[in-house]
């Protein structure tokens, strides 16, 4: 297994916040190199964050409290913090929520509720576009009219390649969406 990414990426993400989608955790469990990469980000001053809805999706396989704790311990041990205000943001920023939904539909996205909340969280920090990112492999769910694909991380397996992307806010979205 091999991991490919731009060499300056880790230093670029110093002092940044990266929201992690559910697929990031699945890939980390499956790929030790990717797990090490996430640890490096944490150790080099990048804050890894996620939302409760991601924890729900990731831990879906647990049938007992003991098994559930494996998932929680894994997330905690990676240094990932959970941002608990995602759904509050839905209430606080109703207008953008509507626009985002419309834009997702226009883009042909089948974004899940979790994806939608993550995109909403990313937008919350639109005034700091170089400090807050979303890491996901669900490219088709992220409208590029609103968000910019900034970096790609390639995960090579014996049977193929998977990629994770880092998205950030576009700062000139008023030209691209109808308000």
């Amino acid at each position: 297994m091999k991991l490919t990414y731009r060499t300056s990426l880790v230093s670029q993400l110093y002092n940044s916040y990266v929201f992690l989608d559910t697929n990031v955790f699945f890939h980390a469990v499956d790929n030790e190199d990717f797990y090490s990469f996430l640890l490096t980000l944490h150790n080099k001053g990048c804050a890894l964050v996620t939302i409760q809805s991601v924890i729900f999706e990731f831990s879906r396989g647990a049938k007992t409290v003991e098994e559930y704790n494996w998932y929680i311990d894994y997330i905690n041990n990676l240094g990932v913090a959970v941002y608990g205000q995602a759904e509050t943001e839905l209430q606080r920023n109703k207008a953008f929520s509507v626009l985002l939904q419309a834009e997702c539909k226009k883009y042909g996205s089948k974004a899940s509720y979790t994806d939608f909340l993550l995109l909403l969280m990313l937008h919350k920090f639109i005034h700091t576009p170089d400090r807050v990112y979303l890491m996901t492999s669900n490219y088709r769910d992220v409208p590029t009219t609103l968000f910019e694909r900034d970096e790609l991380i390639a995960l090579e397996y014996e049977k193929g390649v998977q990629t994770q992307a880092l998205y950030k806010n576009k700062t000139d979205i008023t030209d691209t969406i109808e308000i």
Partner: protein
Amino acid sequence: MSDKDLSELNKKVHDLNYADIGKKTKSEVKPDVKRGLELARKIKENIQTYQDETDLSHQSSITAV
């Protein structure tokens, strides 16, 4: 399950590390790589079992139709 049993079980669920962006400092967690890899192995098996069961339930629902 009684409320008391559920309450006891609730105490066993581990807490997530909650943080508010910009208001708190970054997590001071020092990751334990060995522990992380051990948990990954358990979770991988757990996910595989879940997927197998999901596939089986899917097949049985098709049979039922």
